[in-house]
């Protein structure tokens, strides 16, 4: 394995360990007793509480708990949620689909429409198109996702009820045909994805515009232009050069995939990981919160690693250990 790759992997693993330890410490330092917050639906006796405490290992000293959790993680076991009484892994897996669906949709919108608009802006630099898109982009970055979500709920809920404003799908349709179910899912996806896209596209546009501008002043572009390549081809070459910073952006967008934007999920009752994490935090469900945060951290680290490696493959100058 090349030295630079090994170095990157090692860094990633170290980072993961630190993430893990930090989250663990944060959770355990929190005052209060998670078991005291069990739902009122099933009244719990003192004996049962003691049994639960032993089951979740809450009566052990901190290092023991840490070691137990670490062993569990290596076996793919993230513990059992105190609130739901089910393994964290299965809870997270249930929600992962919805999160990925929303996140990937928004990613695709950003990396197609966002990039295209950014290139358009760069090519039309200084002209009205650039100004208008620039202004729109600036506003986009300033928009609070929950406010946009509420506005869309108000608009569509009230005036155009053909788009559902809550949930992932209509549970009544689960005996209907696959096609109907897919259409239903897509209909439910529109508003949350629109919300998240509106608040993120500005950043992508701006980033791509800057990267494209940088590329356009590169010597090779002027050379190509001088050698008689069509403007379209020149643009294409410049865009290839602008791709590297954009790959870095991909690494930054990955947290979005995981957190799925907690706020958008709250507004649209989208059953993703973000909402699960919010619930877990409020109820101090240690294992569940740990699981969600670990997953988030891991995806971010892996994403940056992937982006790093991709950039290094693309540009040999970046291959330092």
């Amino acid at each position, binding site marked *: 394995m090349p030295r630079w790759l090994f170095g990157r992997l090692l860094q990633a693993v170290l980072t993961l360990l630190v993430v893990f330890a930090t989250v663990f410490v*944060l959770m355990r330092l929190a005052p209060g007793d998670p078991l005291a917050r069990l739902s009122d639906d099933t009244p719990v006796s003192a004996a049962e509480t003691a049994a639960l405490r032993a089951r979740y290992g809450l009566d052990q000293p901190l290092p023991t708990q840490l070691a137990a959790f670490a062993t569990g993680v290596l076996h793919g076991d993230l513990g059992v949620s105190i609130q739901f009484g089910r393994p964290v892994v299965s809870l997270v897996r249930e929600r992962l689909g919805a999160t990925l669906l929303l996140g990937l949709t928004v990613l695709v919108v950003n990396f197609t429409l966002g990039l295209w608009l950014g290139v358009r802006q760069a090519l039309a630099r200084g002209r009205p198109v650039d100004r208008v898109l620039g202004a729109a982009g600036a506003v986009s970055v300033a928009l609070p996702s929950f406010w946009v979500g509420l506005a869309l709920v108000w608009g569509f809920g009230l005036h155009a009820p053909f788009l559902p404003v809550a949930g992932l799908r209509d549970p009544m349709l689960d005996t209907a045909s696959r096609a109907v179910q897919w259409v239903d899912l897509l209909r439910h996806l529109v508003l949350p994805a629109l919300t998240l896209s509106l608040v993120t596209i500005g950043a992508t546009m701006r980033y791509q515009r800057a990267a494209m501008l940088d590329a356009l002043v590169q010597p090779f572009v002027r050379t190509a232009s001088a050698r008689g390549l069509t403007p379209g081809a020149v643009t294409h070459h410049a865009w290839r050069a602008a791709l590297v910073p954009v790959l870095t952006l991909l690494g930054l967008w990955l947290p979005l995939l995981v957190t799925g934007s907690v706020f958008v999920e709250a507004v649209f009752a989208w059953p993703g990981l973000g909402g699960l994490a919010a619930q877990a935090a409020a109820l101090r469900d240690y294992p569940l919160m740990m699981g969600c*945060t670990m997953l988030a951290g891991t995806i971010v680290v892996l994403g940056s690693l992937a982006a790093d490696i991709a950039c290094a493959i693309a540009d040999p100058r970046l291959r330092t250990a």
Partner: protein
Amino acid sequence: MSISRSASGRLGIGLLSVIATAALVLPPFLADPMAQPDLLGAASLPPSAAHLFGTDGLSRDVLARTVTGARWSLGLAAPAMLLATTVGTLVGLAAGVAGGTVDSVLMRLVDALLAIPRLFVLLLLLAATDQLPPWGIALVLGLTGWFALARLVRAEAARLRQAEFMAAARALGASRIRLALRHVLPNAAGPIAVAATIGLGDAMLLEAGLSFLGLGIQPPTPTWGAMLHEGRDILTSAPWVSLFPGLGLVLTVLGAHLASDALRAMLDPRERSA
């Protein structure tokens, strides 16, 4: 190009100043944001001459609450931003000027902290400590917002460490701290200022988001996020309760971003000539 840049910068600074001034100066001239004058007759009224932004479900004047909300939102975000800027700068300077193991360890830590989504950490901290007072919320916002700035400052410091004048200064016996403060800091001031203004916007959005989830400041205090949280239940019957605080947020954050853009344009020679 530079004209339009500074025009948007002026707009940004203008927005921020107007909102900050309104927040400071207007409240004595407006209605009491907490008063519920007429629960039966004046609840959920649309905007009118008497109530420019309408009234909410408890007949409270939305304009007064929005302006007071500006006070709260800025009042929480500004200290948070200052704290984050201070801590980030100090850590970045320490790492960058020290170099070696200290640098590596600190930056590994920062990278790991950056990997954990900030919102998750905030959720954790807010939920763990029931009923945090406002200064506590500003504290946790600040303590979770310095990571990227630390990296930035460290990069700047590391870059300068190689510079010739630094070697010369060290040869003359200047201490590390003096180097950091006298030489690195002024050079890093630009990026710090840019990051700080963006940090202000981020802190405001986060605080509003947390209040929207019901985790931040308690009612009846009218922070913008809390107003959005309350307005949600009457969204269809009284949308103005949610409209104005959101608008306030957008304009303030927009102002912060435009101002930071202008700052960046002023400081970065490449941008200026582009």
